[in-house]
């Protein structure tokens, strides 16, 4: 009977592997585990806590702050949103002023989703400009491939042997990366953190768009306005436990509740097969009036599920990814494209230019984050004609060399 014992063990191993793989489809997330809490830059000690409900991700103070920032006035030229910021505390950088071209070291969390890829392309074109103008000699980049440990060793490598004049860090997660960022600060070289935050303010500046709550407010208010009490909204979420994504849902869920909207959420891993199954099942159970997404990846599959089932198209919020904008126009559904400003990928290098010139910069650089409405959609579609489906409309690189071919060909540098 040895054979059957062996086979039983294999079966159980295989089944548990199945269960495991079912919940680790995370390589296409926009914001991996435990990211920043948002505008305030304070991080919640979220590690290890189970994510049972969105209540624990909800922070009224940050919610209110981001709600306010949605209508804040931004300093600077609106034609250059990547340089705009909300008036606040400034950091004096005169101590970092330097002559000649400097070497930048960039520790990147990953380029494993279309949003990060688009930003990465834009960043490289911005780098070219600064290299031509003699501000930066070179930028050495290490890609951590969504892994905290890899990113920590990347940063330590930069500190020890990178010969870096400045650090740019896009952290993979909040708590895990904090000590590494602090070590980088201790070198006395300027450190710039962008996208997700860390639990230290030792960096010269922390660059990010308004935040997850603002996204949640924009989208849930849009849906609530158009739907009636008792209507059903299916919320398609990438995965649990990611601060910025959880905040988007925490804000949205609260607003849906206040408005009596029946919202049910699913984790999809952005897998279009999963999304289609979920929507088909929901449509088999009853009507679905609204679709809410915490990231636009997979939005097209969601719309197709309605088409395939021959159901009325829902009111829907996606993202400013071209695939959604195109499908939105083609189907004429009532929608909104919230934006997690992709142009923020330019800002760290431009901040570096200011730092090396000794100009003061915001200590927390909050970039504008405003959704694309149906009225604005045409404008963005025309402006981004010929761009691939994974491109993001608000990539903000129109004035950079190589536009538009570099983004059209989408060669990942």
């Amino acid at each position, binding site marked *: *009977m040895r*054979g*059957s014992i*062996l*086979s*039983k063990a*294999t*079966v*159980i191993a*295989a*089944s*548990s592997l*199945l*269960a*495991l*793989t*079912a*919940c680790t*489809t995370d*390589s*296409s997330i926009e914001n991996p585990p435990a990211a920043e809490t948002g505008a305030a830059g304070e991080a919640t000690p979220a590690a290890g806590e189970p*994510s*049972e409900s969105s209540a624990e991700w909800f922070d009224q103070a940050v919610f209110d702050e981001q709600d306010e920032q949605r209508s804040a006035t931004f300093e600077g030229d609106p034609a250059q949103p990547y340089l705009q910021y909300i008036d606040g505390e400034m950091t004096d950088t005169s101590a970092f002023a330097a002559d000649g071209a400097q070497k930048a070291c960039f520790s990147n969390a*990953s*380029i*494993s989703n*279309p949003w*990060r*890829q688009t930003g990465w392309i834009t960043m490289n074109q911005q780098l070219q400009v600064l290299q031509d103008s003699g501000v930066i000699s070179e930028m050495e980049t290490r890609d951590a491939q969504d892994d905290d440990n890899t990113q920590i060793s990347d940063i330590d490598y930069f500190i020890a042997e990178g010969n870096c004049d400045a650090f740019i860090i896009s952290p993979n997660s909040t708590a895990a990366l904090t000590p590494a960022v602090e070590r980088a600060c201790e070198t006395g070289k300027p450190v710039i953190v962008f996208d997700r935050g860390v639990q230290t303010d030792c960096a010269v500046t922390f660059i990010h768009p308004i935040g997850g709550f603002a996204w949640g407010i924009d989208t849930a208010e849009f849906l609530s306005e158009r739907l009636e009490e008792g209507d059903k909204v299916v919320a398609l*979420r990438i995965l*649990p436990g990611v601060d910025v994504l959880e905040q988007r849902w925490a804000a949205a869920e609260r607003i849906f509740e206040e408005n009596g909207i029946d919202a*049910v*959420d*699913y*984790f999809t*891993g*952005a*897998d*279009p*097969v999963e*999304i*289609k*199954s979920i929507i*088909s*099942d*929901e449509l*088999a*159970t009853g009507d679905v009036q609204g679709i809410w997404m915490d990231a636009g*990846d*997979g939005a*097209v*599959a969601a719309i*197709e599920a309605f088409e*395939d*089932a021959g159901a009325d198209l829902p009111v829907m919020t996606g993202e400013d990814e071209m*695939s959604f904008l195109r499908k939105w126009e083609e189907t004429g559904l009532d929608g909104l494209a919230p934006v997690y400003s992709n142009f923020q990928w330019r800002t760290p290098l431009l901040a570096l230019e200011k730092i090396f010139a000794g100009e003061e910069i915001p200590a927390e650089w909050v970039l504008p984050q405003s959704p694309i409405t149906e009225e604005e959609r045409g404008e963005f579609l025309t402006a981004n004609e010929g761009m*691939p*489906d*994974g491109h993001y409309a608000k990539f903000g690189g129109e004035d950079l060399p190589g536009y538009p071919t570099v983004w059209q060909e989408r060669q*990942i540098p």
Partner: protein
Amino acid sequence: MSVATGRSAVLEQNRSPRGERVLRALRTPSGAIFVLVAVLFVAVLAANPSFGEPGSLIRFIGRTAPIAIAAIGQYFVIVSGEFDLSMGSVVTAQVIIAGNLIGQDEARALPVLALMLVFGAFVGLVNGLVTTLLRVPSFIVTLGTMLALLGLVLYWTGGAATGNPADSFRQIGRGGIRDVPVLEIIPYPVLILAAVAAGAFWLMRRPYGRTLVAVGDNAQAAALTGAPVWWIRTRAFMLSSLAATVAGIILVGYAGVHPSVGRGYEFTAITAVVLGGVVLGGGRGWVLSAAAGAFALELLFTLLNFVGVQSTWRDSVQGAIIILAVGAAAQNWQRRRRTAASPTHDPNRPIEAPRPTPGTTEGGT
């Protein structure tokens, strides 16, 4: 373990009335899966009566087709005593190939389709030859293929979605024959599944299928009868990769291009096959039960959707139910062996041989 039955008992069992034979078949794990499918179907119906409408039922079958086809492919490998872990990566790679090579150019659809089939067969050939000729355990070989293909996909795409292929190509997975009475639509994936299932059923009744099961049961004995074991197993691997290719073609139409399409498919397929009562290690099980296992899994997921299990719990519930079901199936085979309820299925006693002295061949069981 005192079995006093001989050839006569076997004949008696085979001559028993049809109804009794069906009942007996349902008591084997490979038959019980059909009962499980029926039970789950009733449960889903109870949770949501509109699921039983012909229109939504046929769509459900269409949606399950790719995983059922993958399970049929995986069956060939498992029944021959091996594993194919590379299946999910083959699906992903094929989806990416379709997206990148066809693009919006419809004229390229057919050549790329041919290329995908060749590529699928090639992956299976490599898996099979390395396993059989170099004698590397298939678990390791296909794990290696899985990682190599995933790496290739990652290198090609950076891990993010690219554009979808032309709509006409996607019709294979999305479209169907419309205006059918009662059903409204017969999705193409349903027809593809029917063809694959019929083909697999036929193949398992051909000399190849019989030898394949024999190889899985006892490779040495099969080799002594003159069967080319290496080539039989290699072809099983090729069938598996080709099934993954067909699943990929359907999925790229159904869902579109995304690097997460196909992820975990190998484990879903293996679970489906095992749920279908096919013994890991080979030599036992029916091919259509493997497909039924896929339907049982998909019904289970649908049930969880309908019942509204909280999203954070869903994976754990799925995992627990699968372990229970598979564990029960494994128990069932064991008990059957121990008690030898069916003389025709007692693997330790050759039917034609004269009855041996008790204890000489059956010790320990």
